[in-house]
């Protein structure tokens, strides 16, 4: 069973606020990901990390930023939230170095609403 956690699960916030979405995993996986998920749409990769002090942007342009100071922790930050940021954000990690055949393990997601 995957041990990957996200907090908060739900967040409603006003425009202009700074927010941080937390993601932690206890599996010791090096590679971690952030996806954005909207209803009826594909999951879009917005950030990923190969390990500590490594972060890369994904396919979907995002105004968010990420950091990876510890293996188990991969937070996502929005400096100034806008209504266009309203979405579900899913964190994931993968075993075995993050190769193409790897299974990705997902957290439960954070549903963000910006008013």
């Amino acid at each position: 069973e995957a041990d990957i956690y996200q907090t908060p699960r739900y967040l409603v916030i006003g425009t202009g606020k700074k927010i941080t979405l937390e993601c932690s995993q206890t599996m010791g996986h090096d590679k971690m990901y952030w996806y954005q998920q909207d209803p009826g749409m594909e999951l879009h990769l917005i950030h990923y990390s190969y390990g500590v002090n490594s972060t890369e942007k994904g396919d979907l342009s995002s105004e968010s930023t990420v950091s990876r100071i510890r293996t188990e922790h991969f937070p996502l930050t929005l400096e100034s939230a806008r209504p266009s940021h309203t979405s579900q954000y899913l964190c994931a990690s993968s075993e075995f170095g993050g190769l193409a055949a790897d299974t990705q393990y997902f957290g439960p997601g954070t549903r963000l609403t910006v008013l």
Partner: protein
Amino acid sequence: AQSVTQLDSQVPVFEEAPVELRCNYSSSVSVYLFWYVQYPNQGLQLLLKYLSGSTLVKGINGFEAEFNKSQTSFHLRKPSVHISDTAEYFCAVSDRGGGSNYKLTFGKGTLLTVNP
């Protein structure tokens, strides 16, 4: 570039009926194939994946999928569904040659609703 098409956005079925969720992909390279399931208010969970070998892959919860290279399809099947199978199902592909820089491409999902 890769793409994944899930032909049905919603599939309603009655309990104990068989179901097939369709997935077609497009890729210029060889791929690995995955099915993930997302139960309400939860993250995605791997159902099964095709890496190599037998084209019929068995997964958790009685699901199976068949890889058809000529039709570039990876349809998911279950012979008898339960109410608890109600969830969103995502098909995904990744580039075999991508190494650690691979990209996992998802379809838009199929919502399976099992009615009593």
